[in-house]
């Protein structure tokens, strides 16, 4: 039996023919990186290849690394294997990785969503034989509303808090979610303040995208200036002393997990907005069908359940262990959906 084009080994998703890894979790020689989140772009590889909009992002995170930027649809060949990057719509600079060898095509999604969020280049269907998909929200309970509706709710919430004399604190992961929130906040209501981690990442993203002005909260920021405005902060700041400066405040989280009433309550967050950078159930099914793939490999999320369902739908579906979720499981980065 011939070796599959891509295999899952101890270090990551490996293409033996090209001697290249996709989003490896252990240090390797050559890595093609789907996007800038910590569990997909890790420290320690000798050479990084990624979409050029992702270059400043991973450089910001990983420091001085050897990285090559590629354009969408640009084919590059390594040892006779053809690679190309295609928009995944997950966050700014996120790609699916297409691998072609001897007429066989595989696509690895990294993380992706089907809705155009106005910031990331929207997801594009790439035809393939084998589709390696995430399924973070691979349960029929997950259904996203159009983002305009969610942002109307968020802006109304902000306005209401301001009327009540309270500051709004909105939690979102510093890369991706934070900028998506920024992009769609209604700045006629007030000013947008940011936590340092969010501000630094936003600075980087400003090179690629047009975002409204923000102000970093520093030691010198006056309490009365923040009042009634909105603060974007990483989830890890919830319950920290840093947040005390914002009293009186109301907290909210924008995440796919907010679908569950219990998720919001147990985190002691006041308001949950269901807003995700991953596909919902229908999004996953539609994109899988559109790729025309017969084989589907589920990497992280509700993999067992989702692949069983796909198998019942006639796909040759299975699950592979990756470390995208293991690292994910801590609460801070969990929010980056």
């Amino acid at each position, binding site marked *: 039996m011939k070796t599959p084009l891509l295999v899952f080994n101890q270090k990551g998703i490996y293409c033996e023919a090209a001697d290249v890894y996709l989003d490896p979790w252990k240090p390797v020689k050559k890595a093609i990186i789907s996007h800038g989140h910590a569990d997909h772009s890790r420290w320690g590889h000798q050479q990084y290849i990624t979409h050029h909009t992702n270059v400043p992002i991973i450089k910001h995170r990983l420091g001085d690394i050897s990285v090559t930027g590629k354009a969408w649809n640009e084919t590059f060949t390594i040892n006779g294997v053809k690679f190309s990057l295609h928009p995944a719509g997950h966050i700014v600079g996120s790609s699916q990785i297409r691998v072609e060898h001897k007429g066989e095509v595989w696509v690895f999604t990294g993380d992706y969503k089907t809705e155009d969020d106005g910031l990331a280049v929207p997801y594009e269907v790439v035809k393939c034989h084998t589709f390696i998909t995430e399924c973070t929200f691979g*349960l*029929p*309970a*997950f*259904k996203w509303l159009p983002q305009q509706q969610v942002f109307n709710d968020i802006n109304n919430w902000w306005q209401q808090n301001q009327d009540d004399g309270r500051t709004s604190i909105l939690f979102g992961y510093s890369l991706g979610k934070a900028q998506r929130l920024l992009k769609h906040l209604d700045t006629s209501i007030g000013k947008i303040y940011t936590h340092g981690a969010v501000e630094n990442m936003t600075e980087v993203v400003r090179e690629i995208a047009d975002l409204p002005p923000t102000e970093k909260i520093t030691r010198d920021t006056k309490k009365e200036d923040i009042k009634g405005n909105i603060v974007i902060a990483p989830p890890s700041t919830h319950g920290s002393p840093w947040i005390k400066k914002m009293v009186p405040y*109301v907290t909210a989280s924008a995440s796919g*997990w907010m*679908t*569950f*009433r*219990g*998720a*919001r*309550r*147990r*985190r*002691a*967050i*006041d*308001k949950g907005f269901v807003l995700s950078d991953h596909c919902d159930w229908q999004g996953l099914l539609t994109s899988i069908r559109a790729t025309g793939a017969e084989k589907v490999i589920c990497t992280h999320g*509700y993999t*067992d*359940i989702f692949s*069983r*369902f796909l198998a*019942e739908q006639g796909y040759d579906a299975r699950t592979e*262990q990756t470390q995208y*979720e*293991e690292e994910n*499981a*801590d*609460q801070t980065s*969990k929010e980056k959906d």
Partner: protein
Amino acid sequence: MKQFAELIRTLDSTNKTTLKVEALAHYFKTASDKDKVWTIAILSHRRPPRPVNTRLMREWASAFSKIPLWLFEESHHIVGDLAETIALVIPPSEESSEKSLNQFLQEIIELKSRSEEEKKEYLYENWFSLNYYERFVFTKLITGSFRIGVSQKLMTRALSKATEIDEDILAYKLMGNWDPATTTFTDLVLEEKPEDYLSKPYPFYLAYAIEDEPQNLGDVKEWAAEHKWDGIRSQVIIRNGELFVWSRGEELVTDKYPEFEKFINIIPDGTVIDGEILPFPKNEIGTFKDLQTRIGRKNITKKLLEKTPVILKAYDILEWKGEDIREKAYQKRREILEQLFAEVASEETPLHLSSTISFQTWDEVAKERERSREVKSEGLMLKRWDSPYLVGRKKGDWWKWKVDPLTIDAVLTYAMRGHGRRSNLFTDYTFGLWDDEKEELVTFAKAYSGLTDAEFRKVDAWIKKNTLERFGPVRSVTPHHVFEIAFEGIAESSRHKSGVATRFPRILRWRQDKKIEEANTLEDLKALIPK
């Protein structure tokens, strides 16, 4: 319904008690009287009997949403709540209903006697035509109790804010066996009618667990100690030649304890006793497990009465000669109770006195506490001699000082995904102890609390990598990790594979310092069963 669903949505949008009270008070000021009565009923767990069993609900919901039943069940397991799962998986709708909460509840009451086909049609019609929150609330009304982060106390506070009636008086008015379908808001809340109070119990005074060293409570002579019994906290009421037995869950349970009918002839009218219903097989206090054979039964047979009779262990008296004496000092109330007991006590009367014990030093109290398991109590209650009988859970005058839990070191053998926030993590664990030969691990308890979030995440990551077999949502794992399990009580049980049932098992500690060979044996566990 719109207004009620909106109320639930608002309550769901905040974690702040003041905002919840505000939202409820606003509702109580603006909703129709009929809807208000239903809201009070729902928030105090008085929902109409379930008209459709949950198996059918699950089947219909999966059929309606066109997903296989197994996928619905997996989703249910992850979401945790059936009504929430149903509201989430069925296709979204932007519709809304003009029907009132009262109309919906009347329909749900009538639904019970309908045919299965009619029930199904009724559910489909409403699932189809309600938006997410209305659909969630509608399904919740049918499936089960409404736990939405609003306690009865919080609801009472809001009602008090809306009506300007004293909170304690409201708590008293809302107790008991009223039927929301036939009760009006005026009747229930606004109007004062002394004759309604015949069967009504007083709100229970509940104690907090002691946080500090008991010696810091001050002079030991100001305190009475008594054993804390592990039964059903109850009020026994004798008024107008009638007996009423109330459990702490504000349930009228008179019919379940026919033994107490004897009280009518010997205890004078206008008496309310606070005490504990305890099982008393073979003329001695039994275990909580014995009592469970009585709790669930609708028909109390003669055989059961002979096998597991109950007694009332009396510790307080709240009403005497028709007078509310809760304001009197505990010492005074005890004198009255003991006087009454002296007059009526006999071999045949199922009334026992929970003795108060006076001490000279806190050390002596501590020694008495050590004896708790011997006398079949859970520890001690400390009560200030001069304290009145208060309403609800209050700090200061009464404290419970439970014995330390029993513990045992067990091995993690199976794991299951948690609910809600933990739905992605394996947090529900099954634990085993070694058999006699130390060859096999025998399951003895399940526990899903006691670790920190960080620990749960670590164990979860380990489980995902060390799964042996999968049985639906359950995974068996390589025996490797030892946990110290704490529990409150232990009794023999033929229903458990291990032959032992433990009460309130939970994880005390992750013993990363221990190897599985060092975990305890089933025999060690059995040695803890009181003889």
